[in-house]
């Protein structure tokens, strides 16, 4: 019974599809962990919106093996990524680098927020100014109450 409940509980957790196959993994857990982290930042060039860590495509597998190979040789994480980037270009990076061509990408959100604050602030400020004119002068106040009084009298008759 206990085992059944345990099996049921496991069934409740949808495990992420794991593309990394046992024969690819490195025996060194530290290196393997680094390989996994690097793989998550690299785009699969066939499936395009998936990282190579979770892709089952053949090229993704080759790239995973390559990442591990470079790590075993002694490359740093940055060197491994640079190695693949040299062959596949910036496109292979899931996080685009900050460079002149991507300034619009990185700074447009900030620019939009600033524009929003500027415009929104401007509109609110102009509203507040109008409120300052709401008080009528004593003369106008008298005229208005006179008209209202006359109207009320008219309604009553």
């Amino acid at each position, binding site marked *: 019974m206990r085992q059944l409940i345990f099996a049921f509980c496991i069934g409740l957790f949808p495990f992420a599809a794991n593309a990394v196959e046992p024969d690819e993994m490195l025996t060194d857990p530290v290196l393997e962990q680094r390989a996994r982290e690097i793989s998550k930042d690299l785009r699969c060039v066939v499936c395009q919106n998936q990282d190579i860590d979770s892709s089952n495509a053949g090229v993704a597998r080759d790239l995973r093996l390559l990442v591990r190979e470079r790590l075993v040789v002694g490359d740093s994480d940055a060197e491994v990524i640079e190695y693949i980037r040299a*062959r596949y*270009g910036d496109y292979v990076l899931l996080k685009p680098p900050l460079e002149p061509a991507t300034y619009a990408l990185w700074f447009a959100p900030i620019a939009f927020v600033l524009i929003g604050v500027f415009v929104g602030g401007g509109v609110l400020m102009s509203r507040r100014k109008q409120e300052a004119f709401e008080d009528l002068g004593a003369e106008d106040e008298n005229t208005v109450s006179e008209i209202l009084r006359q109207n009320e009298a008219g309604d009553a008759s």
Partner: protein
Amino acid sequence: MKRLIAGLPFIAAVIFGGFFLWGLNPDRDPNEIPSVLISQPAPAFDLDPVPGLETPGLARSDLVGNERPVVVNVFASWCVPCRAEHAVLTRFVERDGMRLFGINYKDKPEDAVKWLNDLGNPYERIGSDLSGRTGIEWGLSGVPETFIVDSDGTVLFRYVGPVVGPDAVERFTQALKQAGALPNGAGS
């Protein structure tokens, strides 16, 4: 100030409208992957011949120092579009005098031999890339892919996918002509 704010929706509409117009362009291929290899030296590689085939293997040095730019085609017998492309490439070789080299990508040698025996072999040299490592050096995303390499080893053009159909053949022919990969007067 008021005018500026009043004009903002219009400016926003123009900017976003421009983006939409750009996105609607039927000639734009959102799946296109920019290649880093164009105008770059071809990667270093040295591949053994396909066992069982008389065609010699392929190395980077074979692409350099030729009279005209040459074409490198990555193919495999398991790749269905390659079969259609094979006829087109063969015609370029036989009719127009294009020089064609092949990289046999992740293919069983016996399958490759059978495939070439069935369809004919237009390749001057074929390197067997069993591991797919040379494919990565070329920035390959799939098979087939076709490259035009200048005689100094610079990659001039890359075509992703099969060169099949009038549009693709036209594009490829233009690229061959621009590169000067065809003997004078050919390809017209």
